[in-house]
């Protein structure tokens, strides 16, 4: 009795896990860069700063978000991604080589690395969009699916701008539009890709995981109209050099502030106050988003570089906070779900797959990284300490993921199935 639901939608566990497994690797590389070159990383537009930014936004944030999209599209969209194993394999390989090439290009300034990054990273991102976006178009009018579509289109635009900039860097010949392309690139990446996807996920999971009231229909309906409209108009304003372009930033900051307040309100009023580390990550993420929005607003008025740096770091940490919280929920769920689907009677319960103590340790390390990284804007050598703690954070994340997979493998090899009882 399937009542209109299509089953067998969930992709194999290896598809999502391969993306998640790359996150701690990029995290460790980023940490080492923070330890070795703290001052350069905190110098705007310094090549090492650009390397660190792309390791963070691509290697950690985008890598995990694409992995999560493979799962979300299949389950929420109701239309599974075709040939998920082969597509995930290719996208994952191209992403890894592309991100390392891009970071290597910034660090070494070798032109061929920019070309490799533009080709592999660009094609991985564009291919991901062309693979998933058409499925969302036919997937109904669910607000989360609309948000995923906005995010993917934004990723496509950000990737195109990124390819153009990598080409510019490779040829060492910046065009007259370079600064406009650069601003369009990061606006679509930060707000359209990362912001919209996190909001889309929140609409789905905050209510479901934490038994809160639903986000309002007005909010769900309009947020994915206002954000893309503001991004498109901002781009138009930039290219035609029109006045008051900052107005679109203020509008988008207002949308994010609205999201923040409604999310915090829902988390505070949730019916059951069960202690769950993922709630701490959501709460901390919202706090970091608040810091980012306030700092960015001040930077518009004061034009002080340090406030822009605080805004960027806090915004990245906001995304990482939500991602770490979600990985802590998704990975145990996937292990539990796939073992139970395969009929294993003794599949471990989710809370034993990543034990609470290790989840809490991960949160403490993340909170330390956040506090020290933000303070390092005022005193750059602190970034070394942040790098050391960040190294521990991503090592622990890697351990948690490997341990979960080992538990999965062990149950597959030694577990008892329904038909054996």
């Amino acid at each position: 009795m399937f009542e209109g639901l299509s089953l067998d939608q969930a992709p194999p566990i290896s598809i999502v896990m391969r993306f998640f497994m790359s996150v701690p690797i990029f995290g460790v590389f980023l940490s080492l860069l923070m330890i070795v070159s703290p001052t350069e990383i905190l110098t705007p537009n310094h090549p090492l700063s650009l390397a660190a930014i792309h390791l963070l936004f691509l290697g950690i944030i985008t890598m995990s978000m694409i992995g999560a999209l493979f799962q979300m599209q299949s389950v929420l969209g109701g239309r599974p991604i075709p040939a998920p194993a082969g597509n995930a394999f290719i996208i994952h390989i191209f992403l890894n080589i592309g991100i390392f090439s891009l970071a290597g290009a910034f660090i070494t300034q070798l032109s061929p690395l920019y070309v490799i990054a533009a080709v592999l990273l660009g094609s991985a991102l564009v291919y991901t969009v062309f693979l998933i976006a058409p499925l969302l178009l036919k997937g109904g009018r669910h607000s989360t699916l609309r948000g995923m579509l906005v995010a993917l289109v934004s990723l496509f635009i950000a990737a195109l701008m990124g390819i153009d900039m990598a080409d510019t860097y490779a040829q060492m010949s910046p065009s007259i539009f370079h600064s406009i392309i650069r601003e369009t690139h990061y606006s679509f990446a930060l707000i359209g890709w990362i912001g919209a996807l996190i909001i889309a996920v929140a609409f789905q999971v905050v209510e479901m995981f934490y038994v809160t009231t639903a986000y309002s229909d007005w909010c769900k309906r309009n947020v994915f109209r206002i954000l893309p409209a503001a991004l498109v108009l901002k781009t138009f304003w930039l290219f035609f050099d029109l006045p008051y372009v900052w107005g679109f930033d203020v509008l988008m900051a207002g949308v994010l502030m609205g999201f923040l307040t409604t999310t915090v309100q829902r988390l505070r009023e949730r019916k059951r106050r069960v202690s769950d580390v993922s709630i701490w990550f959501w709460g901390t993420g919202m706090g970091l988003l608040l810091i980012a929005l306030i700092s960015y607003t001040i930077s518009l008025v004061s034009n002080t570089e340090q406030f822009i740096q605080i805004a960027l770091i806090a915004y990245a940490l906001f995304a990482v906070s939500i991602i770490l919280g979600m990985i802590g929920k998704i990975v145990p769920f996937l292990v539990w779900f796939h073992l139970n689907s395969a009929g294993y009677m003794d599949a471990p319960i989710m809370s034993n797959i990543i034990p609470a103590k290790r989840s809490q340790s991960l949160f403490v390390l993340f909170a330390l990284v956040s506090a020290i990284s933000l303070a390092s804007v005022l005193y750059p050598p602190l970034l070394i300490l942040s790098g050391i703690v960040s190294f521990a954070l991503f090592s622990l994340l890697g351990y948690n993921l490997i341990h979960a997979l080992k538990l999965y493998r062990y149950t597959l090899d030694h577990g008892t199935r329904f038909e054996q009882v």
Partner: protein
Amino acid sequence: MILLDTRELDHPIPLEMAVDAFKNLRNSEVIHMIHRREPTPLFEIITKNGGTYLSYEDAEYIWHIYITRDGDLEGYRV
């Protein structure tokens, strides 16, 4: 009939409770789960392991899900 009212429980407890109950289900016994949303992943676990289910939304955020191994669920259809 085994009643599971999981409307007020945080994820993933409802899923784990339902799967646990399903694992211990005897022949034509039926689980009646009341939940705030349709637990799609649960359906995949049930059908892949020889069970059947019936689900319907009674009111906003009130879903009734009936699960059995060998029993007949037609009587629960609304």
